[in-house]
């Protein structure tokens, strides 16, 4: 394997793995706080148990997230030293702020996890809220840093030198808001569906205990609200991409030809020989409308992007399709959920509903990973959009495929252990409630 491909794979693996734990760290504290709030209001010990059980999961997930995040902060230099040499002083600002947010998160989590019997009840509840708020803020900062790579700002690039550096302008780059907005909802949607799905599976498997029902109810609220917002925030993000990164948009939608009334392409595979799309459904003027809000707008196609400045088209398109498809599926489930609630139907432990939610367990995270694939692969061949190529930033260290293999082994092993630990937590809860 080429070193550049190995380095990109290792980065993708580390980020893709870390992001799952990071999302739990952003969303779960609010789930726990919601459960604890119900306990404080109703004095029903079940809710305290639920908050505490979720907290145990969060403790494990947070620790894995913290150490894999530490790994990433070094890995940026281990794999892309030339990128960090120039980018560090410009886009480092969100990272230094993220450091603070993450610090507060770790402190608040320590207080939340170990402070159950040491603190006044409401003080304890607030510590949980602080875990969540600082988690979300730190997520937003990291995404802002990524936004800078997609839409670099806060410097002048003159003769290969980065001058007139303005870190604050770099923080507030053109991509930060739309990316952070979409990502924050994505964290809640994916975590919500994963948690709801898990409890639905346990209910299907015959553990008809109130514990899982309450857990399902709480996590569904978060999942449904966030999922409903996904296509809307996604549309805002896509319009921003259309303005900033026409090559990425063209790859996302397999748009080869620059034209007005550009069609929206659903499905299909690119034929590189004659620069055309095959096996696709095309909606006339769809892309023009979605990208620019006007069916007559001109959309830049791949024909205007030189060959050596195009991202990998097939991967970007496939990932985009997966993300959008699953996004609408989640929105559909969300609308159904609101309808059932509105009609006051007794749906929560109906078999068909449980099966639907159970089957939806992984879709949030699959959509999330696909979305990041669109963002990152769609930015290629650039590490800093239109400034620095990824291949020019890679470390001169040979044999990166060995460190890739090492990271793969360690992360696979840890994934297995985390799953095993979760299954033991669940077994423990069942033993408690069945006796």
């Amino acid at each position, binding site marked *: 394997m080429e070193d550049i491909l190995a380095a990109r794979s290792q980065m993708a693996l580390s980020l893709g793995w870390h992001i799952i734990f990071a999302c739990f760290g952003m969303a779960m504290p609010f789930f726990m706080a919601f459960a604890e709030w119900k306990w404080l209001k109703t004095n029903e010990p079940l809710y305290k148990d639920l908050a505490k059980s979720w907290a*145990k999961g969060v*403790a494990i997930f947070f620790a894995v997230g913290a150490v894999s995040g530490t790994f990433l*902060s070094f890995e940026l230099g281990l794999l892309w030293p030339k990128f960090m040499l120039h980018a560090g002083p410009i886009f480092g600002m969100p990272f*230094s702020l993220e450091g603070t947010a993450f610090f507060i998160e770790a402190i608040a989590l320590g*207080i939340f996890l170990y402070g159950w019997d040491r603190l006044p009840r409401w003080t304890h509840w607030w510590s949980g809220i602080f875990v969540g708020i600082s988690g979300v803020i730190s997520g937003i900062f990291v995404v802002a840093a990524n936004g800078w790579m997609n839409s670099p700002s806060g410097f002048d690039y003159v003769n290969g030198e980065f001058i007139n*550096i303005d870190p604050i302008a770099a923080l507030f780059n053109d991509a930060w808001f739309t990316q952070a907005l979409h990502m924050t909802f994505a964290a809640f949607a994916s975590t919500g569906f994963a948690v709801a799905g898990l409890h639905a599976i346990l209910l299907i498997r015959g553990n008809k205990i109130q514990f899982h029902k309450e857990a399902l109810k709480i996590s569904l609220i978060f999942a449904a609200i966030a999922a409903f917002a996904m296509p809307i925030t996604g549309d805002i993000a896509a319009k921003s991409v259309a303005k900033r990164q026409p090559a990425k948009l063209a790859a996302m939608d397999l748009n080869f030809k620059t034209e007005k009334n550009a069609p929206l392409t659903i499905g299909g595979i690119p034929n590189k020989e004659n620069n055309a799309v095959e096996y696709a459904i095309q909606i006339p003027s769809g892309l023009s409308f979605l990208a620019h809000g006007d069916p007559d707008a001109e959309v830049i196609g791949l024909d205007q992007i030189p060959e050596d400045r195009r991202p990998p088209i097939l991967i970007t398109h496939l990932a985009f399709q997966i993300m959008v498809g699953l996004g609408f599926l989640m929105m559909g489930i969300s609308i159904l959920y609101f309808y059932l609630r509105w009609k006051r139907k007794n749906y929560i432990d109906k078999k068909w509903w449980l099966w639907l939610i159970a089957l939806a367990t992984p879709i949030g995270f699959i959509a999330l990973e696909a979305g990041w694939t669109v963002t990152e692969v769609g930015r290629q061949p650039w590490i800093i959009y239109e400034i620095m190529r990824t291949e020019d930033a890679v470390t001169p260290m040979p044999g990166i495929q060995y460190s890739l293999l090492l990271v793969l082994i360690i992360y696979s092993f840890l994934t297995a252990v985390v799953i095993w630990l979760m299954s033991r937590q669940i077994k423990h809860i069942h033993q408690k409630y069945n006796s």
Partner: protein
Amino acid sequence: MPYTLLVIVILAISLVLYALFGVADFGAGIVEIFIGKKGQKTISQAIGPVWEANHIWLILIVVILFNGFPNVYAVFSTALHIPILIFLIGIIARGTAFVFRHYDAYTDKSQTYYSIIFRYSSLLAVMFLGVLLAAIFSGTIQHDITDFYSYFLAPWLTLFSFSIGIFVCILSAYLAAILLLSEAEDEEEYKIINTFSKRLLIGSILSGGLIFLASYVEDFSFHKDFFSHIPSLIAFILATVLVPLIFLYIHKRNNWVLRILSGLQIILILAGWFLLHWPNLITFADASTLNIYEAAAAPETMKVLFWALLIGSCLIFPSLYYLFKVFKFKETN
């Protein structure tokens, strides 16, 4: 320039706090290797609520480096790729093993495995932290890549680096033992930790000697510079002078004085090590150096970085105080 210096001050504070708290948590893992099951519960309770917060000093150090001193970060992470990777594997293994051990729903045979991983990966991480600290000043890092060995291995694969690694291991275990004294559950455990901390103190002096020996054998300049550089010599002498005093207070069982004295000792050793090379941050193989001012990023970056860190500190320190107040000051209340 003033902002560069201010950022350096914050970097130094973060380094000291990481050494005192983060590295001490690693040291707790090493202590467990030697006292085993006896102290395991105490250690879990002592570092459980605080280890993640303590660990974040390291992230802050890295962020300050790539923000404010991107050259240094780029050179380190290229030339020291391999030891950094090993250090990180140690961090991942110990952090997860510690939390898995604490949060596993059942206490069975798996505890043994978590413990083994927690203990030995703590040792591995601290060892390579020492190796890294040594390598930056050893004068072994090359400017250009000629061949794999001399660029990627030679800078850190030295007796000198590993002697400092051993020294840091013992020192971190010693610091952990001192901090654990006031957490001991009963008299028996207290005595075990008490005896062990004395041994570690002696061990750290002996391993300090090992550093001189390694420097002499491998013809590094450390053993010569050590005596000729007055400020760092004073720092090292003061750290040594504290040894008999610490012995006295271990005997007297005054935990708070001990914490302060041993903390001071660590600060002095760290200060001595960095003063010896001040204002250089890297010494290259051709004896050229990269100092703080040359390595600093653009003035605007340093200014913004400083303010971001200062505002951050205003949030972090009160929260940290609260965390420690809830979990650590119970004996005095």
